[in-house]
C-alpha cells in the first residue's frame, strides 16, 4: 500500500468536515501543533523509567485525548460532521489535576526558576511542556477569532493548560527519580 496520494501537493488538504482548505489554514496550524505535541509525548513516555509506569500511563492517556481534541479542530464549526465526534468532557483535565496534586506533594517547594533539563526523561518533559504551551497559544488565538466556537475548543484550551502544568511537575519528578539535581537560575 502506498501512503502517498499526492493529493496534498497543491498545498491543500481536507478537513474532517469535508472542506478543502489551505495547509496554512489556522485550523490546520492547531492540528499540527497538537500532532507535534502528541509525538513529543510519545518520546517522553518512551524515556520514562519503569519505576514511573503510572506516569507513563497518564501521558498515554493524554495522547489519546489529544487525538480526540484534534478531530474537533479539524472540523468546521457548525458542520453536521461534528455530531460524529466524541464529546470532550473534563475528565482528562481532572485526571491531570489529581496527578499534579499527587506528584507536587512529594516534591520540595520551588523558590527560584530552574533551568529546563536534567535527566533525559526530565528534559523530554520540559520539551513537551514548551510544545504544549505553543499548542495552547495557537488554540487560544483561533478560539478568540471564532464566532460561536464549539465547546470542544474551550475544553481543549483548559486541557492543554493543565497538561503543561502536569508536564512541569513530571519533569521535576523524573529528575528526582533519576537523581538529577535541579539547576536554579542565577540572574
Amino acid at each position, binding site marked *: *500500500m*502506498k501512503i502517498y*496520494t*499526492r*493529493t496534498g501537493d*497543491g498545498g*491543500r488538504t*481536507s478537513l*474532517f*468536515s*469535508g*472542506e*478543502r482548505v489551505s495547509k496554512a489554514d489556522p485550523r490546520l496550524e492547531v492540528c499540527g501543533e497538537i500532532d507535534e505535541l502528541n509525538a513529543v509525548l510519545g518520546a517522553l513516555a518512551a524515556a520514562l523509567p519503569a519505576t514511573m509506569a503510572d506516569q507513563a500511563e497518564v501521558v498515554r*492517556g493524554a495522547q*489519546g*485525548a489529544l*487525538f*480526540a*481534541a484534534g*478531530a474537533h479542530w479539524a472540523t468546521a464549526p457548525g458542520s*453536521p*460532521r461534528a455530531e*460524529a465526534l*466524541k*464529546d*470532550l*468532557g*473534563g*475528565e*482528562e*483535565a481532572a485526571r491531570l489535576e489529581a496527578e499534579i496534586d499527587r506528584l507536587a506533594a512529594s516534591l520540595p517547594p520551588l523558590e527560584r526558576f530552574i533551568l529546563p533539563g536534567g535527566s533525559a526523561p526530565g528534559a523530554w518533559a520540559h520539551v513537551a511542556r514548551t510544545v504544549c504551551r505553543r499548542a495552547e497559544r495557537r488554540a487560544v488565538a483561533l478560539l478568540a477569532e471564532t464566532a460561536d466556537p464549539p465547546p470542544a475548543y474551550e*475544553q481543549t484550551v483548559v*486541557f492543554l493548560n493543565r497538561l503543561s502544568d502536569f508536564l512541569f511537575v513530571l519533569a521535576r519528578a523524573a529528575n528526582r527519580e533519576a537523581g538529577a539535581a535541579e539547576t536554579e537560575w542565577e540572574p
Partner: protein
Amino acid sequence: MGAVSRAASASPAAVEVVSRRRLAPGVLGLEISRPPGFRFLPGQFVRLSLGGLTRSYTLTNAPGDPTLTLCIRLVAGGRMTTRLVEIPAGARLSITGPHGYFTFRASPRRAVLASTGTGVAPFLAMARAGVRAYLLLRGVSRAGDLHDDDLLRSAVEIYAPCVSRSADKARSIPGGHRGRVSDYAGERLEPGGYDFYLCGRSEMLGDMIRIIDERFPESLVYTESFF
C-alpha cells in the same frame, strides 16, 4: 475528554455465520448474526477476527435488518480469504465496532459517490437505508464485478459504471463507460459544488481530489481509503 480509543465498541462481540454467497467472482457477501444492541450508521465498518487474523469489512445491510452483511474482497492466496470462502454456517467469529466516520450527511448540495472495487460497499448500505444521491461513479475492472446493480441504480439519478478493462462489455451495460471514474468526473460532470464521497483505492482518491480542487473547489470531500 473521552478518548476515541476507549470507546465501548472496542470490546469484541461473538457472532455466528448465517450464510455466505458470491456477489461477483472476486467478492464474497457474508451474513452474520447481529450482536444484541448493535447499532451502526451506513458507511461504517467492523473489525472481524477469525483464528488470530483480523480484517476490516464494511457493513452493507440496512440499519434495521435482523442480521449483518459484510462485503469482502477476495485476495488470491490471502490467509483470511482462504478461511472465509469455505466458512460454514454456524461458524463462530468475533467483531468489534462499528468503526469509521464515512457516513452520509444530507445537504443542499448534490451528492456524488465514487468507488473502485469493493469500495462500493458503504454505498450499498446507504442505498438500503434510503439515501438518494445524484451520481454514482462505480469503478470496476470487469463488467462481471457489477453486483447489486439494480439496488444502486435505484438510489441515484445517474448510475455510471466505469469499466477499466473489457471495453466491449462496458458498452453493453446501460450507462456504462469505458475508463476510470476520474475520467468521467473530469470530462462529464458539470461545474458546481457537490458533496463527494470517495471510497476505494488511494490512486482513485488522489486523482479525484486533484480534479475536485481544479474543477469543483466549492465542494466537500469525504474519503475512505482501504488499499
